[in-house]
């Protein structure tokens, strides 16, 4: 059997169909969001939809090329790519101009690239390579030190040097892959508990936080009554750490977070009602979505988004346009398409035969799930405003290329798996 033919027969076409649906529907909505009732062609390079079309075509070519590249390339070049990536990430703030407070864009000629968008993919490869080593077994927490470092390093660079909190946060998604490989679920729960402690302390006071912690750890202590001493020590340390988090929450909130981040959280938690100021984006976003009602106002007929009441309407707030113009029906279809997309990713991940592929696949699952959750949660006013794109929907070449790479490398790995069966 001809090798290249077999790739096309074994590639997951359902996935590609979902990818095409989401990115083309996204492109239509970018045109809708930028449309100001003065008709310019959807293909005109002068508007954002025209540019997005060019990038979409480029992304398709990129996906095609990736499917042709031997899957072993990534395993072989994993660390090299990672090293280069770290260098670029470190260099970026020195080359970048200040764009809305972040230093994450490198301008080459007329093009701007955001290296952080590609860092997710390359970090996933590096993590997969490390955990996919023949001798690697995830038995104790020590086995997770290196994978943790692999994700924390780019995360810190992006957060501290590039000031892109949103992009950095996405790296947390890799924990999902660790979890699937056997990392204790307690780590995820511990993370969730930390968020709860933070929110409760900020929103109300430290007292309810202490009550919650005492109940949880008291119950833990009861269960560990007959366990070895070391468990009790760990539990006590954890308890102290959480008390520390609780005590530090206010300080972190007031001194470490930047003022705009602080107000975004305050608005979300209902501590501040400021529809004209900090709450403006979200308030207008909710009005836009709500006014779409069941069937929406119709394509290109949304007033809220067209008339720029919703800022960032073709990038981070693109889902508004969907809500306003396509209504509950359209929004549901888009959300279900994303759900289908993620469930399909999980199915693909589960059918991988080697750890490298599976770890990589779950990294992909994590990244997409994280983006969907944070982006839509923000637009729906359920999560604080954190500026990350909605995959395939939001305007922007870098993010589209980044997601395309992430997805098509997985598709190539998956197709190769089928080939190995033959």
């Amino acid at each position, binding site marked *: 059997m001809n090798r290249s033919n077999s790739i096309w027969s074994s590639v997951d076409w359902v996935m590609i169909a979902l990818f095409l649906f989401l990115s083309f529907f996204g492109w239509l909505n970018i045109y809708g969001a930028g449309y100001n009732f003065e008709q310019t062609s959807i293909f005109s390079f002068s508007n954002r939809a025209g540019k997005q079309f060019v990038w979409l075509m480029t992304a398709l070519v990129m996906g095609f090329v990736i499917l042709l590249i031997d899957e072993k390339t990534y395993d072989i070049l994993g660390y090299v790519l990672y090293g280069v990536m770290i260098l670029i990430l470190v260099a970026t703030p020195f080359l970048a101009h200040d764009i809305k407070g972040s230093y994450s864009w490198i301008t080459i000629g007329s093009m701007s690239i955001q290296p952080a968008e590609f860092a997710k993919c390359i970090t996933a490869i590096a993590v997969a390579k490390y955990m996919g080593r023949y001798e690697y077994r995830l038995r104790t927490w020590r086995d997770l030190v290196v994978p943790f470092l692999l994700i924390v390093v780019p995360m810190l660079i992006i957060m501290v040097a590039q000031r892109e909190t949103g992009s950095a946060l996405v790296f947390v998604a890799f924990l999902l892959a660790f979890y*699937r490989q056997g990392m204790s679920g307690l780590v995820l729960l511990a993370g969730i508990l930390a968020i709860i402690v933070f929110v409760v302390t900020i929103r109300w006071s430290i007292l309810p936080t202490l009550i919650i912690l005492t109940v949880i750890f008291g119950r833990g202590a009861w269960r560990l009554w007959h366990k070895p001493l070391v468990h009790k020590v760990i539990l006590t340390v954890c308890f102290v750490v959480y008390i520390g988090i609780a005590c530090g929450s206010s300080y972190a909130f007031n001194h470490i977070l930047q003022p705009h981040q602080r107000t975004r959280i305050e608005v979300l938690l209902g501590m501040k009602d400021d529809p004209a100021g900090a709450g403006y984006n979200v308030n207008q976003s*909710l009005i836009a979505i709500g*006014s779409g009602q069941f069937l929406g106002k119709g394509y290109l007929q949304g*007033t809220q988004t067209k008339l720029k*009441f919703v800022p960032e309407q073709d990038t981070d707030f693109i889902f508004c346009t969907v809500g306003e113009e396509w209504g*509950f029906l359209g929004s549901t279809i888009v959300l279900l398409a994303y759900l289908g997309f993620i469930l399909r990713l*999980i199915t693909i991940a589960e059918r991988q035969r080697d750890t490298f592929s*599976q770890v990589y696949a*779950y990294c992909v699952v994590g990244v997409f799930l994280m983006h969907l959750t944070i982006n839509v949660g923000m637009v*729906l006013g359920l999560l604080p405003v954190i500026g990350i794109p909605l995959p395939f929907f939001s305007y922007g070449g870098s993010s589209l290329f980044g997601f395309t790479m992430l997805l098509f490398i997985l598709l190539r790995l998956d197709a190769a798996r089928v080939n190995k069966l033959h």
Partner: protein
Amino acid sequence: MINDRFFRRSYIIAGIAILVVFIYLVRLFMLQIVDQSTKQKADSNALVRQIVYPSRGLIYDRNGQLLVFNQPIYEVTVIPREMRHHFDTLAFCQALHIDSSYFHTRMAELSDRKRNRGYSAYTPQVFMSQLSKEDVSSLSEVKFQFPGVNIRHRTLRDYTYNAAAHVLGSVGEVNQQDLDRDPYYQIGDYSGRDGLERQYESILRGEKGVEVLMRDARGRIQGSYHEGELDSQGTAGQDLTLTIDSHLQILAEQLLGENVGSVVAIEPKTGEILVLASAPGWDPKTLVGRQRGPNYSALLDDPRHPIMNRATQALYPPGSTFKLLQALVGLQSGAISTATLYPCSGPSSTPIKCTHNHGSPVTLEGAIEQSCNPYFWGVFRDILQLHGYGKNNRDFRQMYNQWRDDILSFGLGSKFTDSDVPNQVSGSIPSAELYDKFYGKTGWKAITIRSLSIGQGEILVTPLQLANQAACIANSGYYITPHLVRTDSTQRDQLSSNAPSKHHSAVSTEHFAAIQQGMHRVMTNGTGRWYNVPELGMCGKTGTVQNPHGKDHAIFIGFAPLEDPKIAVAVVVENVGFGATWACPIATKIMRKYLTDYCPTSAAPVETNETNKHKHESKQ
């Protein structure tokens, strides 16, 4: 499969994804289906309903001469928010011919929310209003230099002539009552405040249109919504054609000059009012635009009450002009015939003396010609006593009521309810009950109310009623409701008013010839002879009415020509003296002008009056 030990975790991960999407779907359901308020919020965010003002109907006179039209006025609006950057205040002030201190004061006023409650830095605020085309011309050339500055236009009324102010009325901003009464109006709208502008408001105003415009987040207009699907262009108001003859109206106002009084002329066959003049009046142009407020207050404060339309609102005893009706009712009742004679003892007559020198006894026509008071006292007395006094004065009172009804049938004592003439008052012909109240049922006799015989006493009429009375006599017994607008049927439907209808007087046609002859003799031999134009067949009756406010009121009613009356006229000039001297010349000039389009001394009525007055005073 690898890592089977943790295989179940894939379900947990899938479960997390499903849970997240489920939560978001619930949230979407709440926002889009359950919460209905966002739709409205979105609309109030993005949609601006801009009123399209229709052009108000024009007003023409009976000859198609344009009387009232619309002039464009301009408003300069500013969007303060957009003026922040690169705004050359100095150049802006120069373009508007204002100094910079005015600019800063005005901007401070605009942004003071106590005084300007609708202030928003993002929406257009009226910086200067009611500017003429000249005022804004230099700004409009360089407007592009000033971000946020716009010029809007609306219309104000303008007038061809300084005439007929009372008839036309004026247009001003709607008040609270209008807003409460009619949901059509919004604050800042204009409506007819008085006169025909008010009477025909619903026809003249047209129908406002609306443009639904989209406004972006910075308040800038971004074009029309749904490509204008919800817009309506509005309907222009319908034009009105008046029955007024503007040249005759102007002449009448000139003839009244500085005097206080009024002139009404009616085309007898149609009831069309040719002239409805009241003096003093005002220049209608002064009640327009920014000057309207102060000018209107000044008119209200004027002790001569120029606001009052004397032609329809001032009440006068009809004086000697009432003798005509007295004679007609006398003939109709059978109390007299055309051949009836009454003696006259001149100034020594009782109970009412005669003020004119003539032979005795006099005939009916002669009595009209000479305005003989004793004759008409005789007529009045004989009407009332036709059946004696009867038990408890019953027959006398019945006859009085009969007499009153006959008088009322000439259109006196009440408004013309089927007429479009605004601001009418009823006037009064006293009822028997009124005298009962004064004197008791049996306490009054003909002699008690003798003043009524010569149109003095408790009788009060308006000049419009006098002119209508003249028209009714000219028509030999009927009048058509006097009206001001030649309405076509559609307009009448909108007003739900009837066509001017024919009203018959209680006096039969055959009795009018003698009265008309008498009136003709007034002009040829009697009190009107100095101003007669013989070839025009003029008929008339003068009146000089005593009143407690100074000199007598001069009154004249008449029509011409005798054979085929084309115009009936009533003139009242307050506190000047004899009707023959002051009112008659005005009336004859009006009739002459109307019938021949010639008026010898139209510009100088007062001089004519003065010279004639000295010439004839002794003869009256």
